[in-house]
């Protein structure tokens, strides 16, 4: 079969380009809906191999950004580059290497899970028709849907639907996965499986962009983070980079409060406070390593009974950036 001959070159052989080429890079990406700016001058940078947590409250513009990345929405201005190629011009070359889950799964209710996947697979010009069956079965088993493969989609539970959406994204080997709220509707068990799946994919060398408004789950898997709010990308970088923006706080427990406070101030720590009741001195750690603080306190002659460093939680940062409260911003 001639198809098989062409297929020989199909499988990707390792990372095809320099690691410095980001999987996704946008510059000044902007999209309006009427007078509302849904995405405003976003410069997204997703390095290759990263698990990028794309965070933001509801309505912050995550899905709109993702739709523009995938060529579903036209941008008003700005540029997009995916896997090193301009989008949406190179859409036909880029998207076969991208698996996507966009704002929840969508399938034909009157078809079975398998038939739905087959429909997408036959639509893919770069999918080998000879291996279609195996790939569909593999994708289904990877998301734990093998048992329900023969059921009509309309009879699926919310979680099963979500899993089928993930299976569709995994029909082919992907270099990039764009998963918009992948754990929506999943039970805790399912959520854990998705986390596991994302880690697995990343280990296989894929880049993963996971959008979510659930911070805890992203914090556990992400290497990189971007925080959207009101259409703007407020923070972006590696997880530690982003978190260090909110300073860690060092707490020294000692009966010799005066000496300790003096030592901290001498080290140049900011916002030092005294807590006589608990015999504690607190200050923002900044760039100073914790062991240097311990040394300084002891050198000052204070009796060091305890020292804790508390890094801020992603959630605190998130709330401080995007605002408190339950309301959708716009």
């Amino acid at each position, binding site marked *: 079969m001639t198809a098989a001959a062409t297929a020989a070159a199909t499988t990707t052989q390792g990372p095809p380009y320099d690691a410095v080429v980001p999987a996704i890079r946008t510059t000044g990406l902007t999209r309006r809906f009427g007078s509302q700016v849904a995405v405003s001058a976003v410069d997204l940078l997703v390095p290759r191999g990263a698990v990028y947590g794309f965070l933001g409250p509801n309505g912050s513009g995550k899905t709109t950004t993702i739709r523009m990345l995938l060529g579903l929405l036209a941008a008003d201005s700005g540029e997009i580059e995916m896997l090193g190629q301009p989008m949406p011009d190179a859409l036909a070359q880029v998207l076969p290497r991208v698996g996507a889950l966009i704002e929840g799964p*969508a399938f*034909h209710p009157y078809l079975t899970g398998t038939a739905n996947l087959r429909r*997408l697979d036959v639509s893919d010009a770069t999918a080998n028709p000879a291996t279609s069956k195996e790939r569909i079965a593999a994708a289904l088993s990877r998301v734990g849907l093998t048992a329900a493969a023969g059921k009509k989609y309309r009879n699926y539970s919310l979680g099963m639907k979500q899993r089928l959406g993930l299976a*569709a994204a995994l029909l082919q080997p992907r270099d990039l996965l764009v998963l918009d709220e992948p754990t929506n509707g999943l039970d805790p068990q399912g959520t854990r499986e998705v986390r596991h799946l994302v880690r697995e994919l990343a280990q296989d060398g894929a880049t993963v962009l996971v959008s979510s408004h659930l911070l805890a789950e992203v914090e556990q898997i992400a290497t990189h983070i971007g925080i959207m709010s009101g259409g703007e990308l407020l923070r972006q970088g590696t997880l530690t980079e982003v978190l260090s923006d909110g300073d860690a706080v060092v707490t020294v427990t000692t009966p010799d409060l005066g000496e300790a406070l003096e030592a901290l101030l001498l080290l140049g720590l900011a916002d030092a406070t005294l807590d006589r009741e608990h015999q504690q001195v607190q200050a923002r750690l900044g760039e100073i390593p914790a062991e240097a603080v311990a040394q300084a306190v002891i050198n000052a002659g204070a009796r060091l009974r305890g020292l804790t460093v508390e890094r801020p939680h992603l959630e605190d940062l998130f709330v401080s950036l995007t605002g408190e409260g339950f309301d959708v911003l716009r």
Partner: protein
Amino acid sequence: MSFADLTLPVVRPRYRGAFWRLYKGEVGISLRRRRNLALLAVLSAIPLMIGIAVYLSTPRAGDGPAFLGQITGNGLFLVFTALTVCIPVFLPLVVGVVSGDSIAGEAGSGTLRYLLTVPVTRTRLLVAKTLGVATFTALAVAVVAVVGLVTGAVLFGLGNVTLLSGDTVSLGTGLLRALGVSAYVMVALFGLAAGGMFISTLTENAIAAMATTIGLVMVSALLDAVPQLSAIHGVLLTHNWLGFGEFLRSNVDTAAVLRWSALHLAYAAVFLSLAWARLQSKDVTS
């Protein structure tokens, strides 16, 4: 960092026959939908019911729809009667449902965004959808014709065919002419199907698209019935739908048939280019 000096990105090879698979997938899906099967069932019931009715009560010449009186003499006429009965309402209904649903249905259920990110380029998708709708349209006409032929043959037998002009031709020629009639009806419906596809790109509400498409037929038929508008009658979408009668005359005016067919195809071309333009610029937000 300059991007020019990087290794060329991997381009995945395409497998041959990809478009054929896409098209087959389209047709397969339309044939697996229970709604569509029900439509075909209704269509096939029409010649069946006419045949049985004629069998039970022999109508006289001139009664009822055209050709009804000739069915008892020759079952082939059931094909023509059934098509005459189906073309004003039932066939447009089926075509309206399938074409109106084609893009809007996928947009409404969200499957459009997953097809486009497979990726299926928008042009390819439109061409595949168009061929899918055209296939279903042709199938719908064929169902009426074939069920009519079989029912007619079983109940009344087949024989030489008396044309509208009073001349008689052999059964073989008659069957060829029935083929011509069916082909013409298919072509006539393509214009409507294309209109439905264009309407389907305008909305995410499939029901609205179907209703509008069927409305298109009704408006055209209405305008066609207003004598004061006789100047534009010739170019109305539905005006020449009954032109298949030309195949049943002794001297078929081929030029007229080609002219009418060209009009249907011109409608199809304009509607499809509109659909293409709309789909190209469409924001897929569902």
